Structures are given as structure tokens and as C-alpha cells.
């Protein structure tokens, strides 16, 4: 009776065809069988999960359940939750059991959702393949030789493998959308500031944003309704009226203007990605949407700008890991300075060290103007490009990644090539816009391919509505790995 979508799970619980404990047990049993091959979950605690499920059943019995009470969910290891290990997939935090709970997790706990476990990720969310995790790479459930994408690859993999009806991810440079694309699921990065960052381990604070990953746009809308809130504990949280992100789900596509940015439709895309884009364009046209050509001229420069800014923010955020208050501490050191250096050398993996050093360099005396300030100006130009485009269209259609999921190890020894693979996701983060990935086809090797819908600030409902309409007229999102 394991349901396919979050909505189905909610309906089974509400109609009392299954209890929360039974549903959680079904998922935990499936995880026992399939997770060892996929390595999507890295922390499970059946007692805690079943205790939450038991509490959900009591709430349902008392008649004060919400629509999501008893529905299981997985959390990327970046989200802190009291009594759960929250390691951000790093040796540095391997022993960190959180004394507090992230606001976004608390919001879902308040709904009565049941925690299945923590999912694997690139260490400190730095990576595009999920191979930088201290706990080993996650495998793509569609083909165990391929990566699931990063950095929310564990969350994408467990949803794709039907080991959770939904999961939370985080998106700093595309880390929800790119793994969603590679695993054939749906995921949305909301407008920056919509979802609280309190209790989410910080990588690049002006980019990081949490978002839902699920089978369908409808499920993402239901989750976003519960996740989004103003949070006084997060200084960048926006004070806005609570929205209903499901409100446009049934709005037809007739008359919707979809922009096609010429910089995203070039020869850099694989033939499979081009076909997936064309599939979506055909469907949009058939449903009455109007396609218009737009331009995002700074797209190529968004990668260097992002890596300068995100690394600068990472170098300051990760300076807190010094072996004093929490996390790993080196066993061998002479003085305080050596304790810091040895602790950080042992606790961080190579990608994290690389980004810390990039950030330290671009912020150092004499280089600030040439790199950091320059990148901030480019960030403005990228954001302005989007505003020019949105004067001509409602939403933008774009590829999420130039190819389907690469093989494990394929990008390991070439950081620059790995960074370039994020070409279609990063500009959205520089601008702070919302964007969603949804499945749009398969490669010749039967690997899923996703496309993106990008919207202007606070247009999540419009994006989710368009994605839902596409999913009402296609079946790419219903396929599952064997």
C-alpha cells in the first residue's frame, strides 16, 4: 500500500486506510532493503521515527490533524533537528547531535509530519555530484553507476526510489533543481527569504534557500505551504503575508507567456536535453501558452561571479569550525593555532578546503576589488537581465543541466568542469529568484532529464501552477526506477 505521492499518503491517512505507524514502518522496511545500494539515507533512528508516527496517530485520533499529519518526510543532512545527528555529511560534524531544531523542520513537525531520517549530500552542500560526502557517494536509483546530482542528491535519490514521499533539500547554486533533474523528480527553490534559514547549516548565506523535493508540483506546493513562514530568528527572512501556493494549480496555461532565453538553448546541451526541451515546448504550445524569445546575456559570467561570492561567504561561515565549541577536534596539536589548523585539515574534505581557500583569497587585502566587488557588480547585472526578460514573459523555460546524470567519478578530478555543469542553475541563485525543476523526458540510456521553470520574485504559485498543468498533460513524472 506504499503510496506514490505525498498527496496520496495524506489521503490514505485521512481516510484511515493506513495509520501513521504502519506507513512509517512500510517506508522503514523499504529503506532497509534498498538503501544499502543507493546510500541515500545516512542517519536513521527507527525509535524516533516511530515515536513521531505514534504521536501523529494520536493527533489523528483526537481529530486535530492537519492535511500533512502522519506523512513521512526525509531531511537533507543540512537541517538541524533536536536529538538527530545533523552532520552536513562532513567528518567535521560527524558527532554533532543537534540541541535545537531548524525552523523549517519545526514547521513541518508542527503539522505532524514524521521524520524518516537524514539524507546524504555533498559535504557542506559543496558539490554537483554528491561524491564529496564524508559518508560516501549516493548512487542514482535509475542506474547505480551514475551520480544522483548534488548537493541534495540523497534527498532526490530517496524520493525517486520511493523511499520517501517527499524530502527537503537546499539550493545554493542549483542543489535542489539539478539532482531533481538527474533523478526524475520535482523540486522547487523558493524566492530567497521565503523560507527560514535558521537551523540550516550555512554555506553561502546570501544564496542558501531550502525547498521541497517530491514526485509532483502539487506535492511541492502542499509542502511549501507548510514550510514558508516569517522567522524572526533569521535576519534575512522576509515579512510577507502567508501565501497559498496551491492557488494556481488548476489555472490553464492559455495565454501564459513563456520566455525562451537564447543563451540556454545553444549547442552545449546534449541531444537528449534538447529533445526534452522540445517536448515541453510542444506541450506548452498545445495547452495554449505563448512562447517568446528572451535574452539573458550574462549567463556565462554567472559561474565565475557565483564561485567568487559563494566561496567568500563559505570562507567566513566555515570559520566557526575551529574545534572549540562543537564538532571534530584534532587529537595532536601544540598550540592554539595548530589546534585550529589541524582540526580543520582533518575535519574538512578537499572540496570544502578548496572553496574556503578561494574565498579567503578573494577577500584578502589587495584582491577584494578585483574579485569580490567585481562579482557583486556582475550579480547586479545578472539580476537586471532577469528583470528585462520578465518584462516580456511570465515564466522562463530553461534546461536544468546540459546533460543527464554523469557517471560516478566522471567529474572528480576536474573542479572547473564540475563548476561549469551548473551553468543553467546558478544565475537564479545570484538573483534570488524562484525556480522549479520537473521531469521532461529520458536520455537514450534511460536516465531522467528535467527542465526548469524560472519565475520573478514571489511567483512560486504561478510556477507551481504551470508545472502542475504540464504534469496533468504528461507522464514523465510518473515513471519510477526498477
Amino acid at each position, binding site marked *: 500500500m506504499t503510496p506514490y505521492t505525498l498527496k496520496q499518503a495524506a489521503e490514505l491517512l485521512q481516510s484511515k486506510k493506513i495509520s501513521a505507524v504502519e506507513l512509517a514502518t512500510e517506508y522503514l522496511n523499504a529503506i532497509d532493503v534498498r538503501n544499502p545500494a543507493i546510500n541515500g539515507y545516512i542517519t536513521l533512528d527507527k525509535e524516533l521515527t516511530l515515536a513521531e508516527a505514534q504521536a501523529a496517530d494520536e493527533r489523528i485520533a483526537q481529530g486535530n490533524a492537519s492535511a500533512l499529519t502522519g506523512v513521512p518526510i526525509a531531511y537533507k543532512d543540512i537541517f538541524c533537528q533536536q536529538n538527530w545527528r545533523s552532520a552536513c555529511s562532513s567528518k567535521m560534524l560527524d558527532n554533532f547531535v543537534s540541541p535545537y531544531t531548524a525552523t523549517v523542520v519545526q514547521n513541518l513537525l508542527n503539522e505532524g509530519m514524521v521524520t524518516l531520517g537524514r539524507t546524504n549530500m555533498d559535504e557542506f552542500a559543496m558539490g554537483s555530484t554528491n561524491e564529496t560526502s564524508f559518508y560516501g557517494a549516493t548512487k542514482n536509483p535509475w542506474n547505480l553507476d551514475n551520480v544522483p546530482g548534488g548537493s541534495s542528491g540523497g534527498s532526490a535519490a530517496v524520493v525517486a526510489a520511493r523511499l520517501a514521499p517527499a524530502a527537503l533539500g537546499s539550493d545554493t547554486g542549483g542543489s535542489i533543481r539539478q539532482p531533481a533533474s538527474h533523478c526524475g523528480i520535482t523540486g522547487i527553490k523558493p524566492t530567497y527569504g521565503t523560507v527560514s534559514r535558521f537551523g540550516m547549516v550555512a554555506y553561502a548565506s546570501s544564496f542558501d534557500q531550502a525547498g521541497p523535493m517530491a514526485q509532483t508540483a502539487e506535492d511541492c506546493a502542499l509542502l511549501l505551504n507548510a514550510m514558508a513562514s516569517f522567522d524572526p530568528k533569521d535576519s534575512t527572512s522576509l515579512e510577507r503575508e502567508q501565501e497559498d501556493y496551491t492557488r494556481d494549480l488548476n489555472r490553464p496555461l492559455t495565454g501564459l507567456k513563456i520566455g525562451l532565453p537564447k543563451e540556454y538553448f545553444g549547442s552545449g546541451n546534449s541531444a537528449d536535453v534538447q529533445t526534452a526541451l522540445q517536448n515541453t515546448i510542444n506541450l506548452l504550445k498545445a495547452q495554449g501558452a505563448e512562447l517568446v524569445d528572451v535574452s539573458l546575456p550574462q549567463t556565462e559570467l554567472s559561474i565565475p561571479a557565483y564561485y567568487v561570492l559563494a566561496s567568500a561567504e563559505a570562507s567566513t561561515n566555515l570559520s566557526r569550525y575551529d574545534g572549540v565549541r*562543537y564538532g571534530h577536534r584534532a587529537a595532536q596539536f601544540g598550540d592554539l*593555532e595548530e589546534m585550529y589548523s589541524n582540526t580543520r585539515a582533518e575535519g574538512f574534505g578537499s572540496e570544502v578546503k578548496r572553496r574556503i581557500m578561494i574565498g579567503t583569497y578573494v577577500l584578502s587585502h589587495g584582491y577584494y576589488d578585483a574579485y569580490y566587488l567585481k562579482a*557583486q557588480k556582475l550579480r547586479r547585472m545578472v539580476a537586471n537581465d532577469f528583470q528585462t526578460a520578465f518584462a516580456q514573459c511570465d515564466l522562463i523555460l530553461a534546461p536544468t543541466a546540459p546533460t543527464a546524470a554523469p557517471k560516478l567519478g566522471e567529474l572528480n578530478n576536474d573542479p572547473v568542469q564540475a563548476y561549469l555543469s551548473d551553468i543553467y542553475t546558478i544565475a537564479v541563485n545570484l538573483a534570488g529568484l524562484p525556480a522549479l525543476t520537473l521531469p521532461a523526458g529520458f536520455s537514450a540510456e534511460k536516465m531522467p532529464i528535467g527542465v526548469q521553470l524560472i519565475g520573478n520574485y514571489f511567483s512560486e504559485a504561478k510556477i507551481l501552477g504551470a508545472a502542475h498543468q504540464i504534469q496533468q498533460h504528461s507522464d514523465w513524472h510518473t515513471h519510477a526506477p526498477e
Partner: protein
Amino acid sequence: MALSLQDVEKIARLSRLHLTEEEKTQTLQELNDIFSMVEKMQSVDTDGIEPMAHPHEAALRLRADEVTETDCAAAYQAVAPEVRNRLYIVPQVIEE
């Protein structure tokens, strides 16, 4: 502009990261590759463009200067590597 091994040593020192000799050489190559990609930024004319530090550029909120937190020291220090008498223990840095 290419970095030297001395630059890498300086960056590692500022980053508080101990690197082995082998790691220094590898890092030098990787950072030089990354910075050649980053150098593309310099070709863009950004004169007169206002830097953008944050997507919404909102001013930080202020709150009333009131104590709102309870004493959580025991919970927070439970995950510390070494604590004594509610103090975090580090190697001595002040001469006796």
C-alpha cells in the same frame, strides 16, 4: 595572473588549514585553473554598476534590547570537545 606556492601557503595559513607538501602542489594547480576561469569577469565593463550583496537588499531588522533566551549552556556545551566549569577548554594562550 598565476598563484605561486608561497601564495598557496599564505592562503592556507589565513584559512587556518594545514596542508601537506603534496596538497600544496595539487592546490596550486587547482586554484590556478579556477582563477583562470574567474578571470573572465575582468572582461566585463562594470563601471557605474552598483554592487549587489544580497537579493533583496533589505535592512537588517532590529528587536527590542530584551533578554529572550533561557540558559541553554548545558545543552549547547554537551556537544563541545572539552568543557570544564561551563568553560570551553583550549590550549593555553596567556602566559601564567
